[in-house]
């Protein structure tokens, strides 16, 4: 059969899978390093998920409050992730974000400005100072368009030099990669299909950068699009790489809950950053009741203090609506459970009574637009109804912090953006993703290029692997006895939503694993009606196996971690456990079963841990670690005296 299947072949030095912020930034870097680079994307160029990001990109530029610097940003990130972050990634991120943002201006980005003409920065949950560079509430669009246009400008250079736009960087849009091909333990290429024609395509390349984004489509209520089927996570696993922190999923506290068809669509956190407050059905601002001890010091205790903070942040503490997302999501969940929810099963987010209609329209234009057109609600006149929605996966490919190279037993594989893990620990702060994409996209692209340079021989793609990939891809079309992929996806969403949702319990997680195993059998036999040309049923059938293996990782890790931390809440283990902070759960694939191992977290360097108060650390660290810290401080004190 395979001999009759036409496969288009391409040779590249670096293949970047994913055309969101991370992928585009990686591709730019690889191209700037002189490598022949391909960018692959499941949807059209410029439509990747990054386009939907609203709030902004966090970077400690200190334009609005000059007290901000990378150390403060680093501290906020670690706190937000409950100290489970890979400290080195958090450090690099905090240090390099400002440069990455400024660089965007040289590509043509137009951020909102401060009075003195600098990039304006806005407040966001978990960030001590106003830190998010933004453009109204469409920052992601600005980011992706800017990168897209930078790529065009590089192509124009190539056109002048070589007579072809595609000479050194080419975009393959509406192309899905289904398999990574290896030569021993080295990446040799990637195999996939054009969605438009259904034709197969093979990229031979020594270095592959994964930038495929997240996994949210395994949940019914999600802010994520159809693209988020965990392809990159699954490709990495199958190629021999490892995933970490897969138990941590971020449920964004404010998704739309009405009308039902838009349930899950995001209401940006900027609504709260700009003065919006959460109320229950009694009209009470309930967040004051939910400030956890670890955050008590930084958050206001009265409405008056909270309200003063918007205009005088130096002398007042912040409103509790701006707690990190996991806290707010849990609080909303509790209010609804206690019967104080809104008619559609959420709570009220009110900005209408707090800001003038003009100001709302100016600062939150796309939210105004979104509610007007989707829900027929005028947010300048009435409150919105909101509830938690699956938003972001903290877990992902375990990578070397400096280079983005995947761990495990594979070489030549790199990962950046949402598909990589570690940077955000157990919970991501809003705005930290967009800057993460730029910082680690650049690094991964650069290191992929130098890895390709360092090879003496190009790894070779094995013919039988390609044949196997073709066969797997065509299988759902050739079966007509299996189930409809849409039914399977719905069933998977039910399992994940009901049993591996915001609040988790041991029995339910065990049950989820049993059901996922059943689903695995059914997915193996899925069949898709129709032909190969732009057939969404077939595409979904192929994505399902990725969703499934990633869901298994999440369920397994969630069952294993017996504590609550960030994006993982166990009803049966409600407290945060310092011992568990020292552990990352690592998933690998053995045959086709998910194996889970525990791995100690790397130890923070002294000068970094020294940035924190002892009192704060005491809430997170074990007694031994605190003793270490004290010894360190004592040493430093002596050194000063000497």
């Amino acid at each position: 059969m395979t001999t009759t299947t036409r496969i288009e072949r391409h040779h590249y030095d670096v293949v970047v899978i994913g055309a969101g912020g991370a992928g585009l930034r990686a591709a730019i870097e690889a191209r700037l390093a002189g490598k022949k680079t391909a960018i692959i994307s499941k949807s059209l160029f410029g439509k990747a998920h990054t386009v939907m990001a609203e709030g902004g990109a966090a970077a400690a530029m200190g334009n609005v409050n000059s007290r901000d610097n990378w150390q403060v940003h680093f501290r906020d990130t670690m706190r937000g992730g409950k100290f489970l972050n890979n400290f080195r990634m958090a450090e690099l991120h905090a240090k390099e974000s400002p440069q990455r943002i400024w660089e965007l201006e040289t590509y043509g980005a137009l951020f909102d400005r401060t009075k003195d003409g600098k990039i304006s920065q806005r407040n966001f949950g978990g960030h001590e100072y106003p830190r998010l560079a933004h453009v109204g509430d469409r920052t992601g669009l600005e980011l992706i368009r800017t990168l897209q246009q930078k790529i065009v400008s590089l192509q124009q250079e190539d056109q002048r030099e070589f007579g072809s736009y595609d000479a050194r960087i080419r975009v393959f849009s509406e192309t899905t990669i289904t398999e990574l091909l290896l030569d021993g333990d080295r990446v040799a290429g990637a195999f996939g299909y054009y969605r438009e024609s259904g034709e197969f395509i093979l990229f031979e390349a020594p270095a592959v950068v994964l930038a495929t984004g997240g996994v949210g489509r395994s949940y019914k209520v999600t802010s994520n699009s159809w693209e988020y089927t965990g392809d990159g996570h699954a490709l990495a696993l199958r190629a021999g790489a490892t995933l970490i922190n897969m138990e941590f999923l971020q449920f964004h506290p404010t998704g739309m809950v009405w009308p039902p068809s838009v349930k899950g669509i995001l209401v940006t956190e900027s609504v709260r950053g700009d003065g919006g407050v959460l109320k229950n059905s009694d009209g009470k601002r309930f967040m004051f009741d939910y400030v956890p001890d670890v955050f008590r010091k930084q958050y206001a205790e009265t409405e008056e203090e909270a309200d003063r903070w918007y205009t005088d942040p130096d002398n007042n503490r912040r409103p509790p609506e701006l707690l990190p997302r996991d806290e707010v999501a849990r609080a909303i969940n509790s209010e609804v459970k206690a019967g104080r929810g809104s008619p559609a099963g959420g709570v009220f987010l009110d900005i209408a009574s707090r800001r003038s209609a003009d100001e709302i329209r100016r600062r939150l234009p796309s939210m105004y637009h979104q509610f007007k057109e989707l829900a027929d609600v005028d947010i300048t006149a009435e409150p919105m109804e909101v509830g938690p929605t699956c938003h972001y996966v903290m877990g992902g490919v375990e990578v070397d912090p400096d280079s983005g190279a995947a761990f495990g037993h594979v070489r030549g594989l790199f990962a950046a953006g949402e598909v990589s893990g570690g940077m955000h620990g157990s919970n991501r702060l809003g705005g930290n993703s967009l800057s993460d994409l730029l910082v680690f996209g650049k690094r991964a692209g650069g290191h992929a290029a130098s890895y390709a340079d360092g090879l003496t021989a190009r790894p070779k793609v094995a013919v039988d692997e390609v044949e196997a990939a073709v066969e797997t891809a065509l299988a759902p079309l050739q079966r007509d006895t299996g189930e409809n992929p849409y039914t399977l996806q719905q069933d998977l969403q039910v399992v994940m939503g009901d049993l591996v949702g915001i609040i988790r319990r041991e029995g339910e997680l065990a049950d989820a694993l049993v059901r996922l195993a059943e689903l695995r059998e059914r997915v193996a036999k899925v069949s898709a009606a129709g032909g190969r040309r732009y057939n969404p049923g077939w595409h979904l059938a192929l994505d399902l196996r990725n969703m499934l293996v990633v869901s298994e990782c999440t369920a397994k890790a969630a069952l294993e971690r017996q504590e609550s931390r960030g994006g993982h809440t166990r009803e049966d283990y409600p407290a945060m456990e310092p011992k568990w902070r020292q552990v990352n759960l690592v998933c690998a694939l053995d045959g086709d079963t998910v194996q889970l191992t525990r791995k100690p977290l790397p130890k923070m360097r002294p000068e970094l841990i020294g940035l924190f108060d002892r009192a704060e650390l005491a809430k997170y660290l074990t007694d031994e670690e605190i003793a270490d810290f004290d010894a360190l401080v004592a040493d430093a004190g002596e050194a000063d005296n000497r």
Partner: protein
Amino acid sequence: MSGKRQFRIWRGDESGGDLQDYMVEVNEGEVVLDVIHRLQATDAPDLACRWNCKAGKCGSCSMEINGKPRLGCMTRMSTFGDDETVTVTPLRTFPIIRDLVTDVSFNYEKARETPAFAPPADVAPGDYRMQQVDVERSQEFRKCIECFLCQTVCHVIRDHEENKQAFSGPRYFIRAAELDMHPLDARTDRKEYAQAEQGLGFCNITKCCTEVCPEHIKITDNGIIPMKERVVDRRYDPLVWLGSKIFRRGETPQTSVTTARQGSATPGSARGGVHSHAGGSHDSQAEAQAQSGVNWHREVPHPTAPAVDDRGKLPLTELTFDRAAAPSPFGDDVTFPLPPEHLNFAHPEQDNKH
């Protein structure tokens, strides 16, 4: 309001296809894209349709709904009558791939030809200083989600495949305008480029692009017209002159009146207004209509009947009229000879086709 609703959806590929009927369940609060998703999950698993964000942010789900280019995810079912059939077809201007999916590569080619932002040579990253008022003008255009609805509706290419070579379309005019207005862009020839290479001169300001833009970008008023007005070689584009003239009178520029003729309005019926070959009908009703509706199929302007009173006479006497003679039958704003680009031949039988 849930219940079954009648949908007609175009199914097929480049070799042909037709509208197929479906009865689909529709629930309260749903949009057209939801209904398409329901069809995929039930009767038509291989129905091809693009989408991503489902919130009007990515510009993927462009389609023509009851003949109007729209975003499927932003078209609420409640905007249709309960027993209205909803007809969904692919974008007309671009080649079909399958069902509702079209080949939009034309747009990406044009994007690639438009010269990129040129950073100022002597400003280091981090030192860019711009005022909010100055960036706002370009920011309006950067709201564009590249849904290509404006591209599909523009008559210059909608009905004239042959113009695609020379005409980039409204999306890329505003890209040029955006860079033109960028406070720090180092190139100074954006307008000239738009005129010489993008085919700005083809645009006769019908405003259809502005009508359909889901981001409510004022493509014509804030992008195209300012560029046309300031482009150096004015002789190049007769409309500049006309456009500015009409504008000064505080009116909508109208260079090709189109769908104003509907129903019983046949030539000769008393409808009022001064006819102009440039299309300015000066008929407020027709203008309002042209503004709210979309210029689907450009036709050559039709003569409008003179504004007669109920006796069938022109309502004027030399005593009350502000001029010494009868008004020009071609409209006051037209002088002769007409620029050659502006001559528009109407086949005498064009009316009989309808």
